[in-house]
């Protein structure tokens, strides 16, 4: 990730999530786009792929599982991290099967997410 700017997409219907993550990740040099609607986020993803996607699970319209499915379909290299206040073991299991990188329960420490994202990037690099 040193020679390439990492592109991060955030999808959460609560604006504060995008705002806080924008603040944290643009400060450390990420290119970050945030959306409160999954459909708009998927349009952005289709236009220009992201390295990482952080998505909420429960959203009106398209939910996080659908985001996961579409992102993995569009670009299998893109890692997806699901953040949620409602993590049932069944959903987590299903997400694992669909190739989610990590499942993070809200509320969480911003630093936790940072570490997960760094790990995801490391793995991506390793995969090259």
């Amino acid at each position, binding site marked *: 990730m040193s020679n390439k700017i990492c592109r991060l997409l955030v999808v*959460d219907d*609560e*604006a*504060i*999530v995008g*705002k*806080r*993550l924008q*603040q944290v990740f643009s*400060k450390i040099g990420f290119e970050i786009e945030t959306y409160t609607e999954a459909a708009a986020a998927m349009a952005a993803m289709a236009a220009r792929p992201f390295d990482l996607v952080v998505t909420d699970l429960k959203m009106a319209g398209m939910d996080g599982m659908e985001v996961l499915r579409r992102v993995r379909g569009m670009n299998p290299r893109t890692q997806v991290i699901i*953040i949620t*206040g409602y993590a049932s073991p069944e959903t987590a299991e299903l997400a694992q099967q669909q190739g989610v990188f990590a499942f993070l329960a*809200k*509320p*969480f*420490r*911003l*630093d936790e*997410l940072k570490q997960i994202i760094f790990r995801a990037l490391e793995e991506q690099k390793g995969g090259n």
Partner: protein
Amino acid sequence: MALSDLLKGFLAKRWRTSKACRPLPLVFFQFREVLKANNQALELIADMGEKLSGEYLFDLRYVESTVEEMIAAMHHAIAAVNTLTQDQCAALPGIFVPMEARVRAILGKRDDREGPALLWLAEVEARHWPLVGGKAAHLSELLHNPRVRVPEGFVITTRLFHDLLDLNGLRPEFDRFEQLLSGHLAEEEELATLPRLLKGKLLSAEPPAGFLAALADSLKRLASISEAPFFLAVRSSAQEEDMDFSFAGQFHSVLQVPPQAEAVYRAYLQVAASLFGAKAINYRRQVFPEGGPISIAACCQCMIPASASGVIYSVDPMEPGSQSMVAVGALGQGQAVVEGQVPTDFFRLSKGELPQIVERVLAAKHQALRPTGEAAGGLVLQMVPEGQTAAPCLDEQTLLELAGVAIHLETFFKRPQDIEWTVNPQGDLYILQSRPLLITENTKGKPLLAEKLAGYELIAAEAGRVAYQGIGAGPAFRVDTLADLKEFPEGAVLISHRDSSQFVQVMQRAAAIVTEVGTPASHMATLCRELRVPCLVGVPDILARITPGEEITVDAEDRRIYRGRVGELLTYQATTSMDLHLAPEFRMLRRVLREVSRLYLVDPLMQEFKAEGCKTFHDVLRFIHETAVLHLVELGRDDRCLPGGLARRLDLPIQAGILAIDIGGGIAPDAPPDQIPFAAIRSIPFRAILQGMLFPGAWHQEAMSVSFTDMMHSMLTTPQDTLSGQYTGHNIAIISENYVNLCFRFGYHFNIIDAFCHEVERDNHIYFRFLGGATDLAKRSRRATLIATILEAFDFSVKTRGDLVIARTGNLIQGEMERTLEILGRLIGFTRQLDVQMRDDQTVARYAEAFLMGDYDIAAREG
């Protein structure tokens, strides 16, 4: 044998006799149910408090769901204590109803609608804050502060605001207005017409029945304690005003209002209608876009006949690290100062223990804002007689008194303050307002820049005073009248003779602002700081040296103005970051915690320690816990219920003051009825803990010296402190052969150990909870860290939240349980007063290491 077996055994035996005396194990089981529910609720409160630290990402759903869980835990705890005490706390459910309703009102954003329409300022409590607004909330706190003189008065609350909307059929329009403001795509046209309509209708709104009579009563009461001639100042106090945002000068104030109900009501309508003014709307859209609906209360206070007035900042906002503060003042009423209508004297003072005046720049004060003298009230700018214009507006003694008050208020509110003051002809100093001073610190260095700047033409150097630091460049646009603002182009530098809070209308479009007169303490300067507009004020004759339309660069750091655009400077612009505390999630959580987490019900020996005295959830939990413990103590004292067994004192070589209640096999049958020696303790877990406490050196006998500030901390409730307060009472151990529930209250901290210990591994558990302390939260938290570090070393799973430590372990073989409990005993002794010594994080590490190495003398050596 598991607890339930024990219970059955007892039920089958001899205890099912008297109606008043239930079998002790049943009582004991119920007691533990109370503890469980109580602990759950307390943990949720602590959890929410922690989320305010800024380290977490949480959303509104978190707030809502946690509140629901907490309410459920509260109901459970209340039911459990009533089961235990056989409805001795029958009043508690009724007392909890309004508390729950208030918290739900916060979630529903309705907390400014429920309550009285009039409130005496001195009777305002924290639960009224949403009703009275930020300004009144601060003033009510100051009224109880003996260091500060605040004009008496009352508040017309937001309840009236909402009643007026409902009674006069304005609710649909108001909702639409708020909807437009909160929308991302505002309907500009509608946003121009709707506020005008609302303003007009509100100004002619009919009061609710009986309101004017109640207002007249309040005025009569105020007149009876005021000197004639008696007039009022009616000032806005918006819901959020002064809490997070300054709203400085955004809402209307009406001064010198005659003390008639009708006149005061009309003044309130003017104040309330200013919510729909262009100034306030622009401010909200720029500074407070996701703020949600705002309603307006008004402080109605006695007008102080002012010989001089002004503003003092408890910290120089331009040099926050400098240990100096700045004040400005003028003759007459202070409105002329904050609106930048008159030249002001400037004072800089050092902030030491005894403040000193280090700089004094006096202005020629030809005008002063004073009462018209008419019965209808009002103020007017009047000429100051020659010979009085040059003298400082404040004598040295009053200035130093003011500085002392400013330092005090900064400490009182735990933040730098922006304070409006006034002095009456007798020289008495009054505080009219104290709000958080917004400071943006600039830590950027400027290497090598000076050389590059030498090539640019300087229009002004050492120019005036900095109202807000920063750098801006653009074409100069001159504003002579407010009408000029309409033409203000995007990206221009506003230049003007005087400063005005009306400039807020163009601030978001302005690259910078420069004025010839004005002060860094004006409303405009405050607005510049919030909207981050670089601004220099008091730059003499600058208008004559700039041609309107020419490009200039304003360096409001080094106080220089350049001709042309200085790109090198612009690269130094500080990046802005979102202030977390402005987010609606944070504000809602803060409000919830205000209702929930404060502890008022502190001392069980005080008279008000009863169900009716509970104001917050935490109070209720505290009351429940104490009631539950006392219930056991009382049972223990009752010979009928405990034949042969009282709450019995222990006779130990250390002064631990423990009473033991034996519910079965905890004390040797042949032990004396009182003053039980250690040897007679049969309770396995209790004996292990005592052994640890008695371990040589572990129990500190010497009292630690507590510093004055530590002492003050223990006596004052600080707003950020979610779980503080003094716990007093007995140290009680409820014991059986395999069980101990030990509650320690050492002054300001509170420690519970609940343990079950027998041969069946999976039944064994230890629950450890530690809370509070006599010092500030930082030291208490360090002690909590110390305890957590040690417990983790002994394989506890540990959670800390501020000064709360919760640790659990279990599923251990009996020998391991005993060893662990013995360590806990040593830990209780070791850390009893250690918060005093927890100066820094290194100390924590050193003490933890010492404890683990068995070096318990460290406290005595370093204390």
